[in-house]
């Protein structure tokens, strides 16, 4: 019952926040909605027995990415900018207008139809299994996987993160004009 409850709550939080993020006209609110959506995904991970991934999700996204985005929004003004640009459809504000939304939704429709076609096959092939209450600890096994089978990818991602750290610092560093 707990798991179902958690699943329902998380799913609603995820989907609702995501839609909120897509709909709202305020980039700041959009970021906060993203936070909700990410927390919901963490909950979904928990219902799938992926405790470590869930907590990593919270750690990285809540503690890192969302705050980073909020910072970026704040450092770049945080307001809706109106384009001065040479635009096919005339002026489009930064948070979109009915034209952009129409195109987005039409594309989304195409994607949904395509995906539904794929998903039906998959779901037919793998009928849903009844989930017991067994949520074994994944930390040990993930640790072993990371440093044994996937050690190359693990090291590469650490190098990637280091590169991103240094690169971000260099790119965002204020430079003298000229």
């Amino acid at each position, binding site marked *: 019952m707990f798991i179902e409850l958690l699943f329902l709550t998380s799913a609603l939080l995820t989907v609702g926040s995501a839609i909120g993020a897509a709909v709202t006209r305020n980039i700041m609110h959009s970021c906060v909605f993203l936070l909700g959506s990410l927390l919901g995904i963490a909950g979904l991970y928990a219902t799938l027995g992926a405790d470590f991934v869930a907590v990593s999700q919270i750690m990285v996204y809540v503690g890192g990415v969302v705050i980073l985005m909020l910072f970026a929004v704040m450092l770049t003004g945080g307001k809706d900018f109106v384009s001065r640009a040479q635009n*096919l459809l005339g002026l489009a504000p930064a948070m979109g207008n009915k034209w952009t939304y129409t*195109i987005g939704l039409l594309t989304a429709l*195409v*994607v949904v139809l*395509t995906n539904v*076609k*794929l998903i039906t*096959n998959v779901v037919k092939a793998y009928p849903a299994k009844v989930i017991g209450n067994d949520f074994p600890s994944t930390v040990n096994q993930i640790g072993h996987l990371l440093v044994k089978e996937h050690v190359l990818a693990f090291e590469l991602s650490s190098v990637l993160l280091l590169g991103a750290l240094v690169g971000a610092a260099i790119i965002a560093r204020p430079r003298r004009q000229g």
Partner: protein
Amino acid sequence: MEYTVGNIAPIFLAPVIAFVINAFFGRKLPRQGDWLATLSIFISFIFSARIFGDFVFGTFATDHFIHKTFTWFDLSHGANIWKVNMGVYIDNMTAIMLLMVSGVAFLIHLFSTWYMDHDEKHGRFFTFLPLFTSAMLGMVMSDNLFALFCFWEVMGFCSYSLIGIYVKKEAAGDASLKAFMTTRIGDVFLLLGIVALWMVLGSVAYVDIYAAIAEGKFAGQTVIGISLATFTALCIFLGAMGKSAQFPLHVWLPDAMMGPTPGSALIHAATMVTAGVWVSLRMYPLMVLGDITWFIAVIGAITAFGAATVAMVQTDIKAVLAYSTLSQLGYMIIGVGVGSYNAAFMHVITHAVFKACLFLSAGSIIHTVHEQEMPKLGGLRKYMPYTHFAMMACTLAIAGIPFFSGFVSKDRILGDALYFGFMSGQNPLLAIVPILGFAGAGLTAFYMFRMMFLTFYGENRMGHHDAHGEDHHGDHHHGHEIHHEHLDARQNVPLLILAIFTLGFWFAGSLTGQGIVKVFGEKTEWFKVLVEAPKVERFVNHPREAWGSTDTRVKTELTKARYDHQTGYAGPNPDEHKIHTAHVIGAIASIIIAALGVLIAFLMYIKKSIKPLATRFPGYTEVLRNKYYFDNFYIDVLIKKGLLGFNRFLSWFDMGIFDRYAVDGAAAVNRVLFKASKWFDNVVVDAVGVDGTGVAVNLFNLVLRIIQSGKIQFYFVMLVVVLASYIWTVNI
């Protein structure tokens, strides 16, 4: 006695590592890394000494050799097997040579740390010195001609860098270019010979060449009408001539003294010039097969005598030594030519020791008094007793005085030459070889003692600024005071160590090398026994040895009987009695001739009872001063008349014939064609083609401009649509 990568490779790699470190970080190291270079050579020396001990004393008197190979690269394709092997070939000769090169090079490095101190090129000098040494060591160890050629070229480059190290001196630059270009002529021939061998035999490893000679694979093969053996032997010998500075490619060596004196010592003694002799010795069976030994002997004799005559009139102390090197190299080549294999190699070793010592002594003098013109020196014996002692020992050695090493080796070469010229039934014209050889020996004694007397004896002529000409003995007044020499570990201890090894019994085992008074007992004539011309039959179907495998082959200990019958004469040996006679005659004759030379020098420069050469034969001296006009000949005749004239002819042909008729005629034809094509171009191509295309593209662009908008989101949409349509069509 296991030989693996670990105890062979350091000989070569230690100096290379020192080179790399010094090249990149030398400036940051204390003393610019000279200690590192010296240390690396010392490491080489240690490992070489181990090999030497194993081969010469450990399992004394075997004809064992180590040959280990690995595949460098493999270009085999299908049935065409084409592997390039590299490897190490170590026999008694290699062991002796390794010890000599690393030992002498170590002492030269040690001396250089003193000589080059506070020099502006200190760091660069100690970058190239270990590379030079390592190339020589690698060349000695390599098992095939191709690897030898690679190291050969590295040495060429190093000598170029060392000769021209004072880049701001124009003469140094010219000398380095000259050395590089002259040796390059020989190198081209060497490479030609290697390629010819490779194309016929499919391999250039020594053992394969020996085996091919034994199996008679050369029979019937010809290259451009000459038999293959003669062609390859000649090419390889021409390469050796370039490197060992034989007539007529000798012109670079005297100029090579433009570099710092220790560098010259390395070039003249341990490395570089001995490389040519080395390859001649290694390829000796091929030379015999190609029947060019008489040519080798004649070239050697001309070089030995000609260089000795030029050396008589030189006033620069280093120039005398340079020409003496040329002369001694001539003796080595005579040795190769007359079949005195063992003695020729012994002369390589003994010469390396005393010539290194001579150059280092000269360096010691030059660095102390800052003067290298002999007429301005003199009386240095009082000030530099240790240098005097070392230089005197070496002079006695090179002059062929009994009990010294030069006598041992040179005397045996001359003995064999005597047999070759008069007793072996050859062409009587070849008697010129021993005649020139003996004459050169006498001249050697003369000019070396002339150098000694002018430098160390008599009055000190330092500060005598208007002294021109070697024989000008005007009023003597002492210039600035020269400091007395002290025993210094870096300045004169290397000299004294080298001087010890100028004694003959180290190499011969007996006092004079004639087996008369045996110093160490029966078996100690190690050099004579252990070095012999390759017996090509041994190498037929000889198993190869890969790195890391254990050597299981049988080692044959040389018998006592072979000690007694070993004469060192590598050719066909019909009657030992004649050879022995020739040796006795040669020994006595060379002692007399050398003594004569010393006596004349003594009378001329100490007693002054004989008029010096310049006043006696002014015309001839002038010829000698100009080195027989060889440089002038090369530059004025060969280059200016020959090459330039040819070039002028080509230029005239180009401008006068080709340009006027072919080019201009073609232009006239073109002009007509051009008018036709211009019309075509204007009307058809330009109007219809180009403008039409432009209009078409413009029309097309109206559509494309909408699609190719440069907006990432539009691309996203296209991506999604295309992907979706793909998924729908393939119907997963």
